[in-house]
């Protein structure tokens, strides 16, 4: 049956009426259209289908009383708690505190990652100094640095921002650096032939050529910034979303914990979608499987 639908929508072989398609199916079967290996047209709002099904299952199970409300409260309980926390003013404050930490850490990590990748990718001295050092840094689990950073910077905001910045800069550095060193040597030759200055070469060939790799690093970095935030706020904080969840754990308020997770999830989804959107705009010249 699938062959009929694909063949009747195809415009390749002359007429698109049903009759010749039928002929072809009843024939020797040798001229059948080949099976397409591309995944095909994407479904409308396809990224929302999975989460929606999950949500429906959760709501259904709660309504049927199959879930222990102390362990997993119903979706509407979570929403009501979120509403209470919002009107009480604690939730907006916690969200702002967390956002501020993530934003500062991410901005510093992004700047450092890009600057180091450029310095390392464009000069041999830079590479000798930077690349090995960053890889050494990568080998140490960043969250393992927390005790040391607390000793150095105190338990305030700066140590949290520093840890998030480290979590963010590493994937951005690695992917951007790999993309920079992977630039086609034929393009370097072209730049020489066209008489580009060093700066024009960097601006017109190196940076656009490294952008796809940079975006891979950026998406990993965004995810990393949330991950760092969650860990930091749950063990060493007196404010923020993670603190709110930690307190809720002590008082057995699973609905508050879920509110925190919900907010983290929304943050993650929105930031990742934003990066994807920018990526699609900037890399519009690429024609890949996803288009």
């Amino acid at each position, binding site marked *: 049956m699938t062959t009929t639908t694909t063949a009747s929508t195809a415009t390749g072989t002359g007429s698109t009426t049903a009759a010749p398609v039928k002929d072809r199916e009843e024939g020797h079967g040798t001229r059948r259209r080949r099976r397409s290996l591309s995944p095909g047209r994407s479904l409308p709002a396809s990224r929302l289908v999975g989460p929606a099904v999950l949500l429906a299952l959760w709501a259904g199970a709660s309504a049927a009383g199959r879930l222990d409300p102390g362990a997993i409260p119903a979706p509407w309980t979570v929403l009501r708690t979120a509403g209470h926390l919002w009107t009480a003013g604690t939730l907006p404050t916690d969200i702002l505190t967390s956002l501020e930490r993530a934003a500062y850490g991410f901005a510093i990590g992004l700047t450092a990652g890009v600057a180091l990748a450029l310095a390392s990718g464009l000069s041999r001295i830079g590479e000798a100094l930077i690349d090995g050092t960053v890889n050494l840094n990568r080998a140490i689990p960043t969250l393992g640095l927390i005790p040391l950073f607390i000793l150095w910077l105190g338990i305030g905001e700066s140590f949290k921002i520093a840890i998030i910045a480290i979590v963010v800069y590493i994937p951005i550095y690695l992917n951007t650096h790999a993309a920079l060193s992977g630039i086609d040597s*034929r*393009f370097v030759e072209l*730049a020489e032939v066209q008489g580009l200055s060093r700066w*024009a070469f960097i601006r017109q060939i190196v940076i656009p*050529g490294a952008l796809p790799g940079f975006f891979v690093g950026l998406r990993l970095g965004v995810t990393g910034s949330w991950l760092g935030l969650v860990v930091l706020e749950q063990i060493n904080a007196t404010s923020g979303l993670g603190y709110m969840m930690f307190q809720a754990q002590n008082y057995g308020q699973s609905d508050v914990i879920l509110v925190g997770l919900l907010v983290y999830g929304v943050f993650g989804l929105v930031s990742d979608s934003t990066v994807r959107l920018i990526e699609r705009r900037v*890399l519009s*010249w690429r024609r890949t499987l996803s288009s």
Partner: protein
Amino acid sequence: MAPNTEQLTRPAVQLRSLTRSFAGRTVLDGIDLDLPAGQFTALLGHSGSGKSTLLRAIAGLDHDVTGSGRLTAPGRVSVVFQDSRLLPWRRVLDNVLLGTDGKDAAAKGRSALAEVGLAGRERAWPNELSGGEAQRAALARSLVREPELLLADEPFGALDALTRIKMHNLLRELWERHRPSVLLVTHDVDEAIVLADRVLVLDQGRIGLDLTIDRPHPRSYRDPLLGEYRERLLAALGVTEDHA
């Protein structure tokens, strides 16, 4: 550009005992060569005969190669490669203008694209072009710089036969209009005969044959007089055609 008759008296490219070697293997072995300004020259040779090494030496692209000898070449040199080498992240017009600035650059780029038959494709992305169109864009990119010397390294090698014939006509037409000196590196004897006024055969690092082809243009592959040139060139390349 100045009239071509005057330019012919002054060599555009001068090589004196040019030697190049890779890892102890001598690729170019003391080449002496003058290319008069405005001449269309083809350079033939087997693969590995050093054709591309010679072209890259003239283009100044041989950074990590040991060698000696004297080489003079004009200031404005353009190179066309076998692949079009268009930057995938720049639209066609921006590719043509790579390395060209100035306030009338865009206008020059548009007219160069029109000359190669790509008017209206300025805003296309390189991966939307066919192989022939991409190579036309590469030609436009080399033209925009108003080169005194155009170096072409098997520019039509990756094209299909029909496109190649069209590109031959286009290249010759462009040469007649702009009169740069041309050095066309190719392994296609017929391409060399149809296009060039002088054909060099590179053999074991030296110029094995230097043949002037004195036939009017446009030339046809079927011109029987060209057959004689063809046989001499094939003989110099060590190939005999079996007519049995």
